């Protein structure tokens, strides 16, 4: 008994797509200062000229407020459809609060504590195996040794008694949780804030075979997230990077150690997930919890035969960093997809080949911008303003669904696990901003 991938894909599209047949390239008529349209295009600092379609621009047009859980649109009101099968958490721009957003609603925030430029969160489906992710006082699940944990801290939902305070009652106090799972690459993450003392605080995901100190980066005023790589949500200064938090361990034992008796820390949203980098927190109580993948789509006329597309991404993805960021599709078959390849290079993928094969700047976890264009005979790809070109006469199909920050044909592997913003595409290859 089986259901084919194609059939599944069709089902997604049926659910996800509400036709929004908007816009034609012929709508262009005049330009405001710096060459922008007078018919609703926005004069963003991000673009010297406005593109036919813009989404999540620097002005915030169409995005609403951060973590409001309300519908988003293109900058001219184009319908953007959101499909996600579960609730999901949304970081505030400063990374200090989390708001749960219901299924099929967008998660909107900057993902970078130094920025207020709103983008969309697009993440792969993952499961948090750490039970009682906010309440380390639950006996049985969490095992304290020379440590007392109480559910008395104000947590990341700004909720009194929503998070845990753990206090060492002796030297080297620990609070640990044992997970039952096969060895595979997984990531542990948690939010910490110092409450009392100045001593050493450490984390582990291998039952203390190795402890990694984090106290040098702890704050007594702001939540910081212990992660294996800089990632959206804490990017910009609130990530405490401990590479050992991503590893392949059979039955990992995760937790914290407070070296000095009497010292205390607040703990919130502990996570252990099936991902090579941390993604946004997933609340758990008595069971593991799965957050479904995000899928954002817009239906519009095709910018063919020549076109360009661009997007900025805040992500913790590292090599291999294969993510689809702007995918032009027709009936589930993509014709062009602006991607990062397995070496974190910007490229177009036309369903058969990557073209150009490389871009000149490889990405590392952080914020980077990709641009691609197709003149009808030549592809061009850029990352962070560095561009390369290659011959390619493949034509774009004439009717297009555009997937923003993902690819509906590969929902489990395409999202970049981060925040995408500054989307542009246009029939003029010069109108997207590198």
């Amino acid at each position, binding site marked *: *008994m*089986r*259901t084919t991938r194609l*059939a599944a894909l069709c089902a997604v599209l049926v*659910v996800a797509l509400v036709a929004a047949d908007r816009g034609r390239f012929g709508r262009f008529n005049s330009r405001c200062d710096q060459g922008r349209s007078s018919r609703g295009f926005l004069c963003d600092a991000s673009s010297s000229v406005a593109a036919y379609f813009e989404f999540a621009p620097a002005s915030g047009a169409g995005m609403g407020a951060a973590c409001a859980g309300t519908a988003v649109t293109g900058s001219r009101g184009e319908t953007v459809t959101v499909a996600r099968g579960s609730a999901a958490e949304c970081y505030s721009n400063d990374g200090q609060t989390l708001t749960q957003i219901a299924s099929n609603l967008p998660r909107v925030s900057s993902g970078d504590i130094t920025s207020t430029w709103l983008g969309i969160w697009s993440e792969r489906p993952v499961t948090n195996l750490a039970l009682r992710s906010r309440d380390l006082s639950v*006996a049985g699940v969490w095992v304290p040794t020379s440590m007392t944990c109480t559910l008395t801290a104000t947590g990341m939902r700004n909720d009194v008694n929503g998070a845990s305070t753990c206090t060492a009652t002796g030297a080297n106090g620990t609070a640990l949780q044992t997970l039952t799972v096969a060895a595979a690459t997984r990531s542990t993450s948690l939010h910490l804030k110092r409450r009392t003392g100045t001593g050493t605080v450490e984390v582990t995901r291998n039952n203390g075979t190795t402890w990694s100190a984090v106290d040098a980066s702890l704050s007594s005023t702001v939540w910081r997230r212990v992660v294996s790589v800089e990632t959206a949500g804490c990017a910009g200064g609130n990530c405490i990077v401990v590479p050992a938090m991503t590893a392949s361990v059979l039955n990992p034992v995760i937790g914290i150690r407070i070296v000095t008796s009497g010292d205390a820390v607040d703990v919130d949203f502990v996570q252990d997930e099936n991902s090579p980098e941390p993604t946004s927190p997933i609340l758990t*109580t008595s069971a*593991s*919890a799965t957050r479904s993948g995000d899928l954002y789509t817009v239906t519009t006329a095709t910018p063919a035969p020549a076109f360009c597309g661009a997007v900025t991404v805040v992500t913790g993805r590292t090599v291999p960093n294969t993510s689809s960021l702007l995918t032009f599709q027709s009936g589930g078959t993509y014709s062009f997809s602006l991607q990062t390849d397995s070496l974190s290079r910007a490229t177009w993928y036309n369903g058969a080949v990557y073209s150009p094969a490389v871009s000149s700047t490889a990405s590392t976890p952080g914020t980077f911008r990709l641009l691609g264009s197709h003149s009808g005979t030549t592809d061009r790809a850029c990352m962070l303003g560095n561009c390369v070109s290659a011959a390619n006469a493949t034509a774009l199909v004439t009717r297009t669904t555009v997937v923003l920050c993902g690819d509906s044909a590969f929902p489990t592997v395409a999202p970049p696990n981060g925040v995408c913003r500054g989307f542009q595409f246009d029939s003029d290859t010069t109108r997207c901003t590198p």
Partner: protein
Amino acid sequence: MSRATDAAILALGITLGAVGGEVLEAKPPQAKERPEEERLLYVEGVKKYVRPMTLIDGGEALLLVDAPSCVRRPTKHADCWRREPDGGARDFGVLNRFRASEAVGPECEPVACAVLAGEDADGAEDDKAPAVEDIGK
């Protein structure tokens, strides 16, 4: 598989965020099951569980099974314990889910290992089951 069931499974795929994977009734050779992500569903009124698998080619699939991989102690006084690596059995708390293979005691309640983010994991197991036959139609 009937068309109705097809629809149900497709709806489930959306719910799980696992769209693109095939739904199978038998485990392919060398596929790695991920019971920690297993979830409950009803297929045409029959309680089933779907267990994600990683295929040998790196692809994804869902295994349809009848029995779940986890249990929980349903009430404070139920005889249900979690076996420790040292062989002893320990109180794992009320409602907290753990592997059925680690269960000790006759009163453990079979449950799926995972719920969807946003669901009430402490509620009755059947109440949380997605009515996928309705979603799919």
